[in-house]
């Protein structure tokens, strides 16, 4: 296997570098100045609502589509011009896997692996394929047209993981998998990551991203809106705190430092506070002798919903405007 050092990549050097990336389809701008930086050895989560441009970005990174403006490099090379050369080092799982109708799953896996040149070590490849078909519980003898969505995805995943790569580009790879197979998928990501590979994982399963990724980028309407480590992301959202309202008056509650959006409903007080400010709140809560305290850690979900909600509201707003104009 080609290791990180062998290819002259130091950890932290950027494997993917996109600046102001744009992609026009006619008048529509699918990407509109997207920035993305993925460093060597990291598992990078790529988040965004449907239609935000995730798949288009991945297709540009693979050289299947050409950027209309902006710059993009993969391993320092132009993915459009040097596509075939770059593809020796990467593995790809499309979001919507379609297989050849008259090839069996096993044949499709072999074909893709051979194209990638990863089958020189025959015994090693056979072992890897066998191990993956068993752990992903795939029947490799069925024809491509008879597989369900989840099974087609498994075929593409096995083909991606059966031979080593320096970069894995995965487009919502676990969207058709059951929870058990999601766990198997997670283990494979951890395995290739431990071996030094870089992973770009587009997803909207936030728990998966929180579990697997070290850094994330969130895009919306073809632009990057947030990027950073998970810890930095968590800073962007507030911690939710709630407790029983029994015996506490408004005056006491107003003394809690740094409380935002404080409400009293259904006999419980709830508010949010900056994640840095949790420690400052706790002594006051202790002094008030609050009962039934819950502290909800910040989640990507809230951040995601904030950006997503923005877009959805925008859409609703436009629709309403159109409706009233009629």
């Amino acid at each position, binding site marked *: 296997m080609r290791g990180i050092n062998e290819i002259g990549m130091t950890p932290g050097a950027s494997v993917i570098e996109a600046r102001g990336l744009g992609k026009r389809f006619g008048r529509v701008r699918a990407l509109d100045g997207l920035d993305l930086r993925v460093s060597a050895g990291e598992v990078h989560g790529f988040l965004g609502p449907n239609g935000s441009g995730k798949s288009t970005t991945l*297709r540009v990174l*693979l*050289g*299947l*589509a*050409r950027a209309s403006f902006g710059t993009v490099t993969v391993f320092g090379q132009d993915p459009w011009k040097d*596509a*075939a*050369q770059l*593809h*020796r080092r*990467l593995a*790809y799982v*499309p979001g*919507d*896997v*379609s*297989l*050849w*109708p*008259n*090839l*069996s*799953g*096993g*044949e*499709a896996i*072999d*074909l*893709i692996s*051979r*194209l*990638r*040149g990863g089958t020189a070590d025959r015994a090693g490849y056979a072992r890897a394929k066998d191990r993956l078909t068993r752990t992903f519980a795939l029947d*490799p*003898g*069925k*024809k491509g*047209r*008879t597989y369900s969505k989840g099974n087609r995805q498994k075929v*593409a995943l096995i083909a991606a993981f059966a031979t080593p790569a320096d970069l894995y580009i995965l487009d919502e790879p676990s969207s058709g998998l059951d929870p058990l197979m999601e766990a198997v998928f997670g283990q494979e990501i951890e395995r290739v990551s431990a071996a030094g590979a870089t992973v770009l994982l587009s997803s909207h399963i936030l728990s998966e991203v929180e579990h697997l990724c070290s850094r994330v980028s969130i895009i919306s309407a073809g632009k990057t809106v947030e990027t950073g480590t998970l810890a930095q992301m968590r800073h962007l959202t507030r911690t939710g705190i709630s407790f029983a309202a029994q015996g506490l008056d408004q005056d006491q509650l107003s003394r809690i430092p740094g409380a935002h959006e404080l409400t009293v409903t259904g006999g419980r007080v709830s508010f949010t506070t900056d994640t840095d400010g949790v420690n400052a709140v706790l002594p006051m809560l202790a002094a008030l002798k609050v009962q039934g305290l819950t502290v909800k850690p910040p989640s990507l979900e809230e951040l995601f919903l904030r950006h997503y909600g923005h877009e959805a509201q925008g859409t609703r707003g436009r629709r309403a405007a159109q409706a009233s104009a009629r």
Partner: protein
Amino acid sequence: MSALSVLLGQRLRRDRWQLVSWIGGTGLLALFSAAAVAQTYGDYAGRVSILRLAIANPAILMLRGTPRGGGLDAFVFFEIFTFLALLAGFMSTFLAVRHSRAEEESGRAEIVSATPAARMTPTVATLIHGVLASVLLGIVVALAFIAGNLDAYGSFVTGAAVASTGVAFLAVGLLAAQFMRTSRGANGTAASVVGIAYVLRGLGDALGTSGTDGTQMSPAWPSWLSPIGWGQQSAAYTANNAAPMLLSIVLAAVCLLAVFGLQARRDSGASLLAGRAGRITARSVLSGPLALGWRLQLPSIIGWCLGGAFTGLLAGTLSKLVEQAGSADPTVSKVLHDMVQGGGSMHHVLLSVMFSLIGILAATAATQTIIRMRQEEAGGGAELILASPVSRTRWFRDYLLLGLSAIVLVLLSGAVVSGLSALAVGGDPARIGDSFAAAAAQLPAALVYLGVLALLFVVLPGVTITLAWISIGAGVFFGFFGGLVGVPQWARNISPFTHTPVPSSGADFSGALWMLVIAAAAVAVALVAMRRRELRPN
């Protein structure tokens, strides 16, 4: 609105342009042939001499049917009915599979079956839709012949014969959809049945017995095994006998009983013949885009090669017979000369006529390769390949190589079988060389299809499939039948097949040269443009 009317409306709407082109095209063929016969074979004596020759020539009987006298109307019926019936058959089988098995395979049928439409209503809607299409086709054919100044009653008998053949094959298509797991399999099976029906009728007609005056013929029993044969036995314009058409309706009813019986018992998406399991590991040759293309296209290339070999067999065995007939009467040689450009001896012209059929098969095989490439791009297969270290140009170039191989294989199978069969019936050994020369002459036209459609794929991928089929259909019509039905020369010149040379001493090869230049230029431009082209799934 009931579920049935919703589904029927959806089918009519989805097929509207397709049916307009099938029905309109078939109607135009009828109109052209009526007009052309009146113009070319206007006098009774001429028609009688042609028919006498046709009866002596099993190849023409096989292609056309059995003649029923020298009347103008009956002559038109003899000349064109089997083609009209063939078109009706293909229209119906493709329609049936499109709305049944293809829907089940894609999973769309499940969405529909989960509504109150349930399992049977979609099939009923497809049946009504297909019957409407066949009836409409019959009416259009009848009107076309009436417009061509043929007898009105006989024209409606012809229309009814076309429609009943269409209905029979509609039921065959629906039945094939019950048996086969995939739409490809169902289309292949149903279209084969249509082809077999045509060949059975051809055999029966060729083996038939001629009447006393030498312008009439009754077919042998194999013709009575074929819905196309039944339509033909209506003997429109002469006997005007509707009874044989009832056989088509009976066949349709029997097939439909089986269709509804099976439909009521089987699971949605399941088929009577199960799909076969595949290999767990790929053969070692399956390691690149060219090998994958072979794997995907092999069944259809084999099919086109069988077609080429069969036509080669006809060319080899019949050449002696036709040569004798042709030297006896100049009218036969005129018919044959109308189908190809240029002169040459009777033998060379006949060989060229048969090999232009093989050339059409070769061009169609090349066209299908380009269509497959587009389907791979639209379907997502190309994305998996191009995400590996395979460049766009290599992937594209491999499909061109595949198309070239398909063309060469089809032409070779025709040439080899033609040469050998000519030897087997005691022909001159020089016939082997002639066969290969005739096959080589077809190469430029097929290459034009490959090159120009490849360029079209690069520039306008979205319309490639539609334009590919249209260009083949138009090329065959103008190039091969154009001379027979009296299309003006400038229109015939549109077709690459028109420019195919007839190899003989003093033949004109300039058309072939130009076609090679066009094909090479198109491929060169396409290869350069492909470097700059994105993958365009939509």
